Structure formats: structure tokens, C-alpha cells
């Protein structure tokens, strides 16, 4: 069992992500955020359990649903929000947007809008760490949908034969857009696929923060000491639409309702309370802090400068 302190700290972090994402949803509704966004609501335990146990120099690759990974890895809010609005002060100077948000200074090698796109990049990052013997490790997050991309198979094989310091984290929310994993995926625990690559695979209930934390701890320490890759399947039900604005007409009402009933933040809250923690103050503290930060981040982003069209070709090549 993890310590109260860890649980409390992680709760704060999960709540921060939740509040960020709920705010993004609301602001998106105003219609001035370009493109489309996918929020991390319900998955918070995964990013927090993993990233809170990484070093700043460790590297992660993310997905189209990447805000949670960024926040958990220490990326600052203001430049994230500016990126969502395509401003010059954004992390990617407005070139990437939500689906390509990246912060190399924090080890975030980028969200990736190609489903499965980040998996192999993380394996490569781990190869670099192993070759340079600099102690870094890499983590790749990807969805249940992405688990049917061939590059996962190739990447697991590579990571295994080279014993690379990488952790595969499959965020199984049961859906890929409108397609249920139960239909598209030929196995009930995706983690069982890891055995085909001699990689330890574990399926975890990602609505149980403690379990998620321990699974992440073990995987990270395996990677850190040179024992090679681990595959974590983090299971949780998708609480929200695929993208902000998705009405989920294709989805059974009961299933949606049940999903909301096993929310990790609510569950962690109960767990903390049952261990005597004053959750109400933690919540209001966290809210106060982040709401201010968000207010000013959204204001600044909306008033931020657009990238100059003179610099359209600026980042195509490095010179």
C-alpha cells in the first residue's frame, strides 16, 4: 500500500489535471479554440502514477489525449494553454496545437496525433539512453485502440531483445472513438500480449490509484536498473466523449453512467477520507491555486500574439 503522503500528493495532482481538463472543455465551448481537443478526464491516475515517479530528464511520448501527461510531467500551464490557442507563446509556437503538444525541456517528446505514433519513438529514446548510459528511461502512453497497431508489436519485440529501459503504458478506456475494445481487440486483457515478447505484462485497475502507483513503480524500477521493458495495461472506463463535443450517440446509456460511477478522483477522495485526511481543504486549496493559474493562462492565451506568417517556414529544418 502506498503512503498517505503519496496518495495525498497524487490526489492533488490528479485534481489539477481534472480541473485543467474541465476548464478546457468549458472554454472550448466558447468556440475560439482552434481545431479539436481530447481530454484526459478519468485517466488521471495513469499519468500521475507514472510521471510522479519519473525524473525530469526521463522522456515520455504521448497521444492525441496528451494534456494529462504533460501536466503530470511538469509542463507549465500558461504555455500549454497558449499552444491550444495557436499562439506564438505556446510550447510549440502555435505550430502543433493540442494534438502535438510537446515540451522537450520536461522530457515530453510530444503528443502524437497518429494513433500508435509515439510508441516507437519512446523505444528509440530508451535506445539513446541505453547507448549513452545516462540513466534516463522512457515511457510511452497509448490507448487500447493503438494496441492494434503493428508498430506496438514491433516495438515490444525491439525493446525486449535489446532490454531497453522503456515502459509501455496502455490506457485502456474501453473505446477507440466509437469502437469498443471488446469488438476490435481479440483479447480481454491486452497485457497478455506482452508474454509473446517475453515482457512482463500486468493489467491494473486504473481507477485504483494505489494499484496504479505500485504497477508504475515496479515498471519504472525495472527499467531503471536495466531489467528491460514492462507492459502495463491500465484499465478504466471512458467517462467522456472521444473528443470535446462528441455526443456519444453510439454508446449505451447505462455503460456511460457506470463509467462515471467509478471515477478515480472520487474513489481516491473516499480513500483519503477513510484514512482521516481533510480532503475538503486539499480540494479547495488546489482549486484556488489552479483556478487563478487557469484564469490568467486563458486570458493571456486569448490575448497572445499570433505567430508571424513571415515565419511560416521557420521550423521546417534545423540549421
Amino acid at each position, binding site marked *: 500500500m502506498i503512503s498517505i503522503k503519496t496518495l495525498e500528493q497524487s490526489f492533488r495532482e490528479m485534481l489539477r489535471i481534472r480541473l485543467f481538463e474541465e476548464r478546457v472543455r468549458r472554454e472550448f465551448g466558447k468556440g475560439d479554440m*482552434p*481545431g*479539436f481537443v481530447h481530454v484526459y478526464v478519468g485517466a488521471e491516475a495513469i499519468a500521475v502514477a507514472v510521471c510522479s515517479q519519473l525524473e525530469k530528464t526521463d522522456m515520455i511520448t504521448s497521444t492525441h489525449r496528451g494534456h494529462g501527461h504533460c501536466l503530470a510531467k511538469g509542463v507549465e500551464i500558461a504555455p500549454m494553454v497558449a499552444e491550444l490557442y*495557436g*499562439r506564438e507563446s505556446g510550447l*510549440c509556437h*502555435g*505550430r*502543433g*496545437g493540442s*494534438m*502535438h503538444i510537446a515540451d522537450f525541456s520536461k522530457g515530453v517528446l510530444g503528443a*502524437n*496525433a*497518429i*494513433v*500508435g*505514433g509515439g510508441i516507437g519513438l519512446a523505444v528509440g529514446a530508451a535506445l539513446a539512453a541505453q547507448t549513452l548510459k545516462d540513466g534516463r528511461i522512457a515511457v510511452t502512453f497509448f490507448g487500447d*485502440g*493503438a494496441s*492494434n*497497431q*503493428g508498430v506496438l508489436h514491433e516495438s515490444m519485440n525491439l525493446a525486449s531483445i535489446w532490454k531497453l529501459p522503456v515502459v509501455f503504458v496502455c490506457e485502456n478506456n474501453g473505446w*477507440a*472513438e*466509437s*469502437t*469498443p475494445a471488446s*469488438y*476490435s*481487440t481479440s483479447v480481454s486483457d491486452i497485457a497478455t500480449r506482452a508474454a509473446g515478447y517475453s515482457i512482463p505484462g500486468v493489467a491494473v485497475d486504473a481507477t485504483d490509484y494505489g494499484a496504479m502507483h505500485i504497477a508504475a513503480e515496479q515498471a519504472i524500477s525495472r527499467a531503471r536498473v536495466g531489467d528491460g521493458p514492462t507492459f502495463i495495461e491500465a484499465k478504466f472506463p471512458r467517462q467522456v466523449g472521444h473528443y470535446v463535443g462528441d455526443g456519444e*450517440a*453510439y*454508446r*449505451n*446509456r*447505462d*455503460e456511460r453512467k457506470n463509467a462515471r460511477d467509478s471515477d478515480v478522483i472520487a474513489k481516491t477522495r473516499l480513500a483519503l477520507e477513510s484514512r482521516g485526511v481533510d480532503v475538503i481543504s486539499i480540494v479547495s486549496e488546489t482549486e484556488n491555486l489552479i483556478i487563478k493559474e487557469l484564469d490568467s493562462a486563458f486570458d493571456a492565451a486569448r490575448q497572445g500574439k*499570433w*505567430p508571424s*506568417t513571415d515565419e*511560416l*517556414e521557420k521550423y*521546417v529544418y534545423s540549421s
Partner: protein
Amino acid sequence: MSTAVSDQMVEKSFLQALNDAIAFSMRNDFRVIVLGEDIAGGAGQGTPLEGSMGGTFGVTKGLLEEFGKDRVRDTPISEAGITAATVGAAMAGLRPVLDLMWASFAPNCFDQILNQAAKLRFMSGGQAKIPLVIRMAVGGGLRAAAQHSDTLYPLFTHLPGLKVVVPATPAEASGLLIASINDDNPVVFLEHMALYRTTGLVPVNHEAMSLGKLGVLRPGTDLTIACVGQAALLGIEAAEILAIEGIDAEVISLRTLQPLDLDGLVACVSETQRLVIVEESPPRCSVSADIAASISELLFGHLLAPIGRVNSAATPVPFSPPLEDAYLPSVAKIVNKCKVVLSAV
């Protein structure tokens, strides 16, 4: 409805024209099946067949209900596997219509397109027949950024063995998709996202348009604006602006990039002697370069001005709206380019 339908037209959206064309083809031929990620969508959840998504843009909505799960299949996110499967299925007697969502995902199955679909007939000395349509949404404007906005027109056009279709209007969407499904070759069918909600008149009788004939969308005598797919709408707007200044521009929808109606193009440009090509792709080794090279050669000495090309910028597609706007071809850029071409002696 029962007599003389052949001249009848009905107003519908580009999206509806595609949906109707697929349903029409499926009714006519039991070998036609459709498949792709989320093309039925959520099928089997809750009340059977209800609320199905019909693909990201809704093009395949309703097909599941009419044709059932065997002929309308959601797939896992496995572009290589599903594309290979449709190539194999086509060789073994089906006529699949595959939806790849965005063209930017096609690189995930480029082996299956380039090495398998495009080459198998040739390598087998004519034994393989691959009646396969691969539909993809292309293009920018949605602020979908670099990995969701490619057109890849030139990449497909470069590959012998593929046909490449780029409708610009609902009528073209209908006629060209029916023709593509009827065709015994692998056809890459590229639908610009900005077109789905556009509307226009479409023949009610679901007539196929021939693959390899351009369409003149607007006649004109002063110069020819040859456009790839959705760019034709920009071309028409540009022509309207030019018309105010007394310039009479012809606007062409190329309709198919492979086969390319080079004869038709030569005929048009022989008259106007000035050509601007509009294509939403980066400029290098592009369709505009391809056509400019051919027309420069075929009409050497007959052109009154260098051929003008309006392409996307030589960058990945940026997210930020002003950058994306600067990246894309636009009415203003076309008007300017036309003026340059017209001002040359």
C-alpha cells in the same frame, strides 16, 4: 420519378452524394462491401445498430442498417492490416470500399498501397484484378494540424497501377465514386474535408462519370485555372473576382489525376494560352509541377506567359489559424497569380 429520370437532377450535399453513391453501388452488386475505422461505429452497443457513427464525417451513415454487419464492417485501428485485407479480398472476389479516415494515416499502409495494390496486377502478369476503392479525407482548414491535413495528391499520382480521383462538386462526388467502385483497379478516392457540406445538383440516376475526363466548371477565354479537387471552388471564386475586372477565366476541375486528361487540358490551354494550376499540396514533385512540365513541353512556344502555380507552402501543415491560412492556397493567391500570368507578355 419513373420516366425520363436521366436528365433529372436533385440538390444534395457532397457528403450525401457519396453516401448515396455507395448505397447505390451496394444495392447493385453484392460484392461491394465497405469497411474502415468507425464507419459503422458503436454497432452492437446498446440497441442494435442504433446511433452508429457512420465514419468520422458521416459518409457511411445508414449503410449498416440497410446492408448489415457482413457488408459494413468497423475495423480495428490497423491501417496496414485492413488495407492488406481489402487488397486480398479484392483479389478473391469482393469489391471493397475502404475508408482510411484521413489521408495522413495512409503512410501507415503505404506498403499495401504502393507494393501490393498498385503492383500485384502487373507482377502477376495480369492475373490479379483488384477492384478496390480507398477513400480518404484530405486537406487543411480544420486546424487539425500536421498529422491530419495532408492531401498526398502527388504521392498517389506518382504510382503506376493506381487511379487517383479528386472530386470537387457533389455531382463529381457521385459520378466519380460510382465509376471508381465499378472500376477493376485500385482507386484512391480523395475527399477534401471542406467539401462535405457543400451542395449542388446531382443526377438522380446515379450515372458514372468517366475516369480520365476533366470537367470545365466555368468557361472562359482569357486564361485557364486548372484545379485539383476542392481547389476548384477557390478557382471559381477567383474567376468571379477577376470577372469584375473584366477578365474571363476558365475554371477546370481535373477530376482524376491518374488517368490525367492531358488532351483535354491541352485543348483548353491551346485556346487561352495562359495557365494557372491550383493544388493544395507542397510544391515539390507535385501535381502542379507535373502538369506544368507536360503543358510547357506540349505547348512550347504557344504559351503567352510562364505557367503559374499556386500550391501549399513547403512546410508541414501548421496548427495556428493564421499560419494555416498562409499555408493554404487561397482565392487571393489565385487572383494574384492570375494577374501575374496575365501581365506577362
